[in-house]
């Protein structure tokens, strides 16, 4: 019994406009995939470098459709009890303690131990009911009455076994809890999985998903994003900043600055009331973009024009050359 697939979107442009209304600039591809995910009722696997708005896409879709966002952050050793459900032992224990007298009543009149156990067994359902069930993100998403967006973040960090388990849940959106029975989704959540591609995901999982690769945006796109999110930054300064970030990405750094870091940097520049990207300002704020000492040293060397004759130096002159 598959849940109804609700058609949330009418057309691709509608998705695009809707995302823009919640401050997310989606290109045709992103909007198209979101639309298809809704129409085909398939999960979307989003890959790409860190900080390019993979998680944000799921959040924005939730915001746009007014759905509840349920997030499952993956990590090594994540298992069913943390992802799906767990019995709340402590609460069961507490209830047993408090209900001790009542239990005594129930068991009154039994003569042998096996008699008592039999009678207790008939009351078992009380202790294994949804009352004592601690729902984790996956069960919450399946059990929810309102529309939900389920975000499974950084799936590549979870173990392969968990992936196999997830596959099962995502294919028919129902879970079986031995003590209670099968719970099916009342409405089909939109599912997003993100991956930073630190390991190969299984073919089976990929087969079930739609796929989109979100790369670093082009200079123009990133500029649009900066201007949308940090409107206080002057246009010319924003352009300089984005161009510098792009030239950094072309360097062989240990960690490339992400879009979110560009935004942080833009905010920092606004806070510092920077008027231009002079070496001093860059020097003072560089650590917003670069998170490794080795990278900072390399970039500093590049900005001072030492040993940076292979195109990085040129970017530097452009920055200085601007008024």
């Amino acid at each position, binding site marked *: 019994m598959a849940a109804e697939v609700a058609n949330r979107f009418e057309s691709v442009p509608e998705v695009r406009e809707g995302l823009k209304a919640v401050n997310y600039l989606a290109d045709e591809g992103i909007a198209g995939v979101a*639309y298809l995910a809704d129409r085909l009722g398939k999960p979307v696997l989003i890959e790409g470098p860190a900080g390019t708005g993979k998680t944000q896409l799921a959040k924005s879709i939730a915001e746009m459709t007014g759905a509840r966002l349920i997030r499952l952050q993956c990590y*090594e050793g994540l298992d069913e009890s943390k992802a799906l459900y767990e019995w709340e032992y402590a609460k069961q224990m507490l209830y047993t303690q408090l209900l001790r007298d009542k239990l005594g009543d129930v068991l009154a009149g039994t003569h042998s131990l096996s008699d008592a156990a039999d009678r207790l067994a008939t009351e078992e359902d009380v202790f294994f009911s949804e009352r004592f069930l601690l729902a984790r993100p996956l069960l919450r998403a399946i059990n929810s009455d309102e529309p939900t967006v389920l975000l499974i973040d950084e799936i590549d960090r979870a173990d392969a076994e968990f992936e196999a388990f997830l596959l099962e849940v995502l294919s028919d959106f129902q879970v079986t809890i031995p003590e209670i029975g099968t719970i099916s989704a009342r409405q089909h959540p939109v599912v997003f999985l993100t991956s930073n591609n*630190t390991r190969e995901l299984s073919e089976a999982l990929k*087969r079930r998903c*739609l796929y989109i*690769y979100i790369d670093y945006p082009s200079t123009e796109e990133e500029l649009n994003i900066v201007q949308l999110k940090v409107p206080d930054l002057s246009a010319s300064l924003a352009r300089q900043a984005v161009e510098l970030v792009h030239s950094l990405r072309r360097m062989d750094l240990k960690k490339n600055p992400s879009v979110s870091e560009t935004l942080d940097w833009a905010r920092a520049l606004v806070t510092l009331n920077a008027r231009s990207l002079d070496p001093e300002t860059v020097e003072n704020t560089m650590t917003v973009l670069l998170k490794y000492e080795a990278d900072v040293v390399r970039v500093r060397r590049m900005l001072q024009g030492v040993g940076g004759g292979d195109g990085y130096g040129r970017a530097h002159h452009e920055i200085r050359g601007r008024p």
Partner: protein
Amino acid sequence: MEERITKFVAALRAAGVRVSLAESEDAWRAIRHMGVMDRNRFRWALRATLVKDASGLPIFEELFPLYFGVDQPPMMDPQDGMSQEERDMLQQAMDDLAGELQQLLNWLLNGRQPSQEELEELAQQAGIDRATSTSQAERYARRMQRLLHWEQLQELLELLWELLAEQGMDPEKIQQLKERVAQNMEALEKQLEQFAGQAIGEQTVEEYQKRPPSVDELMERPFELLNEEEMRLLRDEVRRLAARLRSHAALRQKRGQDGRLDAKSTIRANLRYGGVPMELHYRTRRLRPKLVTLLDVSTSMRQVTEFFLWLLYELQDQIQKARSFAYIDHLEEVSQDLATLRPDEAMQSITTKLPPGHYNTDFGASLREFEAEHMDAIDFRTTVIVLGDGRNNLQDPALDTFSDLGRRSRRIIWMNPEYPAQWGTGDSDMLEYAPLCNEVYQVRNLAQLAAAVDRMLAD
């Protein structure tokens, strides 16, 4: 259209993109929702359903235009709304003038699409078999045009219009003919180019199978057979590899509980059950080796050493403490270089200390030097890694020092890039060293090296 899509999927598969049956089915469903009218959206529908791997995206982007081309306007019938008399007049004039351009005029003035066979024949004549890359599509389209005598067309058309005017055809009708024929010419030109592109594309699908080897293949390839470009590719791979090794290590950590109850932690965890021990907590051992590495940096060993250093660099957090020594004919401590520089830079700095030259590798002498100066680096917790081919150029192998090293350290792991069959041949003393080591690995390629490093972290 359906046939196109089926062929396109086949071409993707031939080019090495894994497309399952379920996925091509999804593609059909996606197209049903997205439609085929908006070409860009159609492309995204296919892309999201067929390609599930970032490495497949460039292949998709290259093949797509070959199969679905640019939107081409269909050819129009220029004789629309002409009377039978006028049609006959036109036919007569065409027959009089056409000559070599018969076929071309026929297409343009009757608004008839060239058939697949006609196009194929034309492409064959243009010698399209010899094309090797889709970037040549335009050139072959030109050739096909020449075969149709395209260059004479303009002149001939002028003559045709004059002739028709002379014969008293309505000037308005002539104008209509002119405009439509011009549009048809444009359309035909595009069709030719697209056809050439597709033909070449289908031809080169087989070529794709000879495309550069995948990262997996490179991992299995011996270090000395890698070229510069492949080395660079693999270096990027090292990062992912390191992440995988790290999660192995974490799993081992999780499972590597040594069985002793951790009373403190168990009591704390079970307070919420009223002190009834429902969850047991065990002591975990931190599995982080303390390393002393002895690296052969002679020319033949450079690649494997560099990759080893990249792996160590990425896995710093998994190692408690490391001291590193490089040797060729003598020993230099290089811990400082490795701590402050990136592996490729460190390698350069090491080479300036130990410049490769015509002198001989001498592990024995280097061992003696180690014994004299750095024996303090070794204690019973240390794992000693030797990365070398065990060739001493017939010098003293210093086996007594080596076995002393084995006694004092926790274990010795030797990683050797040579085949075991080569050990002990010529000036190799490997067979004498091997029994003194706890573990010996062959590390001819990155896959083997990664497996050896994994074992090294396993303690």
